[in-house]
């Protein structure tokens, strides 16, 4: 007990909650499958995702092409695995420069940063700051999400970066609301009063005293949001507002494949399965975690 608990031990402790829930473990396995498929895409696939093979169009699953090929003879497994990269692993800022972490993840992370700040501000200070912030966010939340995406993408053009911006704008009001309600609750605790009697500045109060204690519900909400973001990226791709072709993007794959759906259903099925399984996986993970954390209280 005299030694300092190592960081590793702390991580293991917080992970132990995860193993308690079967639902969360299943969710985690699904999510990890896609993460590994995307990260290791060059290793686990044998074909270039954009290589067209006129000899092998519209094929079903076989030993050659595990998941079959699309209407241009491209290997579906390669396309699905590389398609996961944009969502989960790389955010291509220009054609040859990308930063790690997918579009969905970055979108939610930036939305978290903005949403938390706004939520903390209005929850902690209250009064007119709260009124102004919340009314603006209410106005934004009044738009149907998909319409908001369409407006944003139509206004600033389709690119990976703009998808990130769209996810951020659409996601932050919801996060701000959540953080605000958590802040309102935490603000009444004695340790907040104790910090106030030390005359701590507002930034310290919000980010050091309050935010760490709101992390549980925020993390769970963020996981669900990554799921929704993936869904939205798929939708944008399907509407032709996603990433420019010929990049393998799940949404655009469904879009391109659905014209040949009667001759080759595989071109639609696999990207759809990819999107829905990843979203379901994230939801299971979040639900399992939520149940376990609630049980601990």
């Amino acid at each position: 007990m005299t030694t300092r608990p190592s960081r590793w031990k702390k991580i293991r402790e917080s992970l132990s909650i995860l193993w308690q829930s079967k639902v969360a473990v299943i969710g985690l396995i699904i999510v990890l499958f896609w993460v590994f498929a995307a990260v290791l895409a060059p290793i686990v696939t044998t074909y270039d995702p954009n290589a067209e093979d006129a000899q092998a169009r519209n094929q079903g699953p076989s030993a050659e092409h595990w998941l079959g090929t699309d209407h241009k003879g491209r290997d579906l497994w390669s396309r699905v695995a590389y398609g996961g990269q944009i969502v989960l692993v790389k955010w291509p800022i220009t054609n040859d420069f990308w930063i790690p972490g997918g579009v969905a993840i970055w979108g939610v992370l930036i939305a978290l940063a903005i949403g938390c700040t706004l939520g903390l501000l209005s929850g902690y200070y209250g009064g007119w700051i709260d009124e102004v912030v919340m009314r603006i966010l209410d106005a934004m939340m009044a738009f149907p999400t998909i319409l908001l995406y369409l407006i944003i993408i139509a206004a600033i053009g389709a690119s990976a970066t703009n998808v990130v911006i769209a996810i951020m704008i659409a996601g932050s009001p919801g996060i701000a609301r959540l953080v605000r309600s958590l802040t309102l609750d935490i603000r009444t605790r004695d340790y907040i009063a104790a910090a106030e009697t030390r005359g701590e500045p507002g930034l310290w109060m919000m980010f050091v005293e309050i935010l760490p204690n709101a992390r549980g519900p925020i993390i769970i909400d963020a996981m669900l949001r990554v799921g929704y973001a993936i869904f939205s990226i798929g939708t944008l791709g399907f509407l032709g507002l996603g990433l420019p072709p010929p990049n393998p993007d799940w949404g655009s794959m469904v879009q391109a494949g659905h014209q040949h759906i009667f001759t080759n259903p595989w071109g639609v099925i696999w990207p759809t399965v990819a999107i829905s399984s990843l979203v379901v996986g994230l939801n299971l993970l979040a639900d399992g975690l939520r149940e376990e954390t609630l049980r601990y209280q």
Partner: protein
Amino acid sequence: MSVDFEWTTDTDDHRIKTPILKVENLAISYATRTGDVPAVRDVSFDIQRGEAHSIVGESGCGKSTVAFGIVNFLGRNGRIVSGRILFQGQDLVGRPQEELRHIRGDRIAMVYQDPMQALNPSMRLGDQMTEVLTVHRGMEKKDAEDLCIQMLKRVYMPDPANVMRRYPHQISGGQQQRVVIAMALLNDPALLIMDEPTTALDVTVEAAVLDLIAELQKEFDTAIMYISHNLGVVARVSTRVGVMYAGEIVERATVADVYLKPYHPYTHGLMRCVPRLGMDKRSSYLYPIPGRVPSPRNLPPGCIFEPRCHYARDECRLKKQELREVEPDHWARCHLAEEIAQQGWTPPEDLIADLPPVPPAPDETAEPILKVEHAKTYYEAPSKKLIGGKKQYVKAVDDVSIELKKGETLGIVGESGCGKSTLVKTIIGIEKPTGGEFEFIGMDISMPVSRRDLAIIRELQMVFQNPDSTLNPSFTVGTQIGRPLRRFKTVPPNQIRAEVMRLLDMMKLGERYYDRLPRQLSGGEKQRVGIARAIAGRPELVLCDEPVSSLDVSVQAAVLNLLMEIQQKLGTTMIFIAHDLSVVRFFCDHIAVMYLGRIAEIGPAEAIYAPPYHPYTEALLSAVPIPDPGVEQKHVRLSGSVPSALNPPAGCRFHTRCPRKIGEICETEVPPWQDVGDGHRIFCHIPLEELRQMETVVTFKDNA
């Protein structure tokens, strides 16, 4: 086992009637992820008709589990492992749910701690009450209503017909508890189980509810099982007492025997760690029980109290003791009971060494360091009209003046909602004052903390009530104690760790606590860390808002001793809020009695507890439950509850409830401050001569 067998036959011999409830060798376990937790083991007791049997013990000792076991409310993971529960001769253990529910609803009634949770907030009280009769007894609605009104009258509910039409939130907490008790009595139960029924209530309300319980017990001839952690309350209501410790009954006898002639060292310990009304810190000590209650997962092999017992010998460590009869009808679970009872008690060496030295008496001639004059803190209440409407104010603190000299301790007492906490929060700057002058070490502090100078902020710190929320759950103990050191630059940055260690040591916590998170600490430990954090910056004045109210008595004694030690070492001045009048008397030099935002009486501690009294102080003192069945207490009860601070009564604010109201003058004119001398002032119209003639409220008969 043989001992218990003898006991059964023995009791049957000298009482012919069968007990209403007889619990034999009851053991209850809860299933958890890490295995079964034996929460209650080998509990035996019986309750006769018309008897009130109390179970007393600190939190987590299994009192409520026993009660839940009897009514079979153990939840999904709890189960009765062994033993019998005989209710009117029938064994309840192992019966099908349906049958149990029938017996429970008709013959066993239960009253819980929080009346608001026992009543359905969306149903009228009348409907909830009549439902009991129409469902269980198939009574006609009209007859049921009449019976309910009668029952409400019997529990002294004012205007019962009107109360029947109200919703639970429209009546006060004390009245809610009356309704719950009335509801419990509707079916004329043979056994009434009360689980801390007055813990959530104010002293004055508590006293009235306890009176009611005592009266009902006589009138209805019901058997009552009364669960409480408060030794004083138990002394007032019960005929027999069982003391529970870590899941076992360690002593069982009549009230007088347990309180005046205890045999078990744990009972001794409990008695020694609560201050009696009238004790003070300069003339007496509190002796906390060392160590902490063992976890039921990890019990000592011998006597369960052995690790904390001063008398422990080898046999205690090795052999488990059964509950045995040490005297006719006096049972104790101790090998050395007779010896201990005869010996008399001298505090052992190591305990004496731990006792705090007596804090120096404050210098009477010194200039006050805190001067509050005509302090007012109002909260704006939302107007009921949609547009316009006059602004209304909740006058939480209204014209309060106090002075505090260096090294002095000022106690503030009063019922909840009287403005104690608001006053303290205004002084420290978390609430904004509406008016008045606040001066601290010669500087003006009538502004919120955000606009104060860091030099003033560090001199004023606070200790909070709730141990569970006083520490930030995300940071380690070391970080949290270190923060004020960093912020106020009390010590250079490279010495912070050493200083935190020193503080932990002073709190008797030890260095291993440095890296612990709040959830790994017990309530008392959290409170110590809270105190360490408050004194880390070496403040001049520490404001304590009920720092010991939610702690168990043995822990409370240790925390009080700690505060005294701090006071002695650092010469800290303190304001100490509490609702326990014995604790305030023990700890404070001066006391202010507050009522509805005003001070009713202020003066030196000993003067407050002796006549002349303010009529409110008199009522408070007469309501204090005292853990001594021999004590004589004058019977003064207040009617109703504290009026709303939104619209306080004119004239003297206490006139609506005052048993000594002298006439119209009380309703119309603000009373004068009457100076009794020595700083003792009473805010009342009654002439001082008359107040002086009051009798002492609490008289101790010297029977020890």
